[in-house]
């Protein structure tokens, strides 16, 4: 890692990890700072990111914050005059951040597993060595936590997928995956919210509306929410 560090440190405005236990802070352009938690994709790391988000959001120079999967993007209203100082404040805030539990609601999502929209279920079986029934059961028996929203309006990245059904994203995305498709992408699962190209693996379909621009808030899910998939029908 030392090579990367020295390279990154020699590049102005792109300071990288100092040690494995430190967060990595980098910039996108002049007014967006990405802070990435060290360590694994787990809920303790996510809770600390949520705590950081909570602390940073009221800062007057902050326009928007975007919590991601064990990371946080902080978008400023304008380019800071003293970028190093701002980065030091972020780092200090991370050091102070203790994990917080967001008090979320529980959302039940009725799902039709299998059937015409589960075009990748066979591939998941091949990859995992499980039967379709086992894949479906492991999926609906999971207790999921919304770690972040992103990618498309109202799309929730869910943590809690059983490692036995982790499945890498497809190298060739489906060109027109329907909104409502229940999918697995790596160690994450979610319900697609827009019809279009999608590289995640489809195993079912849900009718529930996840986003309505006329509602406040427009997204059904929020970070910290618990999600249960309810097998309404299983068509295998």
């Amino acid at each position, binding site marked *: 890692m030392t090579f990367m560090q020295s390279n990154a440190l020699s590049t102005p405005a*792109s300071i990288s990890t100092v040690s494995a236990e430190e967060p990595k802070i980098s910039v996108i*352009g002049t007014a967006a700072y990405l802070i*990435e938690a060290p360590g694994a*994709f787990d809920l303790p790391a996510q809770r600390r990111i949520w705590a950081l988000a909570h602390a940073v959001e009221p800062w007057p120079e902050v326009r928007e914050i975007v919590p991601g999967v064990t990371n946080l993007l902080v978008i400023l209203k304008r380019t800071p005059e003293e970028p190093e100082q701002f980065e030091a404040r972020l780092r200090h805030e991370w050091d102070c951040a203790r994990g917080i539990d967001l008090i979320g609601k529980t959302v039940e999502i009725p799902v039709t597993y299998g059937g015409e929209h589960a075009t990748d279920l066979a591939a998941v079986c091949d990859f995992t060595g499980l039967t379709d029934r086992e894949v479906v059961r492991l999926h609906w028996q999971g207790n999921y936590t919304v770690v*972040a929203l992103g990618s498309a309006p*109202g799309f929730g990245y869910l943590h809690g997928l059983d490692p036995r059904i982790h499945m890498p994203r497809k190298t060739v995305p489906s060109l027109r995956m329907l909104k409502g498709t229940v999918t697995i992408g790596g160690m994450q699962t979610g319900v697609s919210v827009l019809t279009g190209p999608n590289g995640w693996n489809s195993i079912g379909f849900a009718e529930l509306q996840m986003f309505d621009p006329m509602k406040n808030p427009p997204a059904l899910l929020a970070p910290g929410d618990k999600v249960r998939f309810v097998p309404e029908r299983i068509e295998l």
Partner: protein
Amino acid sequence: MIEILQTGPLNTVQDLGRFGFRNAGVTSSGAMDWLALTIGNLLVGNGEGEAALEVQTFPFRLRFERGTTVAITGADCDARLDGRRLPPWWSVPVSTGQVLELDAPRRSARAYLTFAGGIDIEPVMGSRSTSLRGGFGGLDGRFLAANDRLGIGSAYACAVPPGGFGVMPPEAALAEHFPASQDGTLLVRAIPAGEYALFGAEAERFWTQTWKISSQSDRTGYRLAGEPIRLASPVELRSHGVVPGVVQMPPSGEPIVQMSDANTAGGYPKMAGVIDIDLWRLGQARIGSRIQFVQSSVTEALAAERAVQAYLEDIRRTVPMLAHALAAMSRR
């Protein structure tokens, strides 16, 4: 009201963008050239964030169903009002029944039409910008079509003289603050981003070659064609927020620059981020044109930002004075 008589696809209603919902996966949208939209609004006496028409496919024609003031900024599209040529970056009073026409520009990509009082549509989540991907905002979340009619706000028409008036285009007024090449390649300043170091010595080629903006480019992002730059082994990052200007390196090795309709999250390695003050220029780059990235710094970006703000401040101050003076002269 205005009525759209002729339009190509992808022309939309845009303002300065929809902020505060990126954490729900909602892209900011907004004008690809925010500076042109801002100046257009100033030229018709509007608040700077009123909605405008962003025109990027041509020819485009509209008819005014009542008198108002219109400004045309951004790309020079040989604008004609009832056949009479209007200079670029120009504001002019129009009367009922007049027809405004725009043709494909020879350089730059997008023109902005602003109207005194703005475009009268309901904001969605705090903005009138069209989110094509989300299917909301602007005109029902879609692009303009012939026979569409849009309401114009009923602000006081600002005192624009009959012949109109204009401003010096920002490319000319700010030339010394934005680098230019000899051969027409757009120089885009950028700062190394999170995964820059992973590319090692290969990263050098990111700066030294020119990249062509491929035909698979739109308001969401530009795909760049050139000599690929690949990682020895592919890296898939955890999903994280991104902003317009991020330069991502997918496994193909050809960069993607996210633009106004940028995805809110990404997982590709990030080579660089375009400095925010250069985004309006990149927003005017055309498909098929060439760009080259120039390594920049926050200090340089801040200097350019100050220059743009001074230019805008000058317009804010002089437009009302100039308009009144010219109007008074024309009454004599």
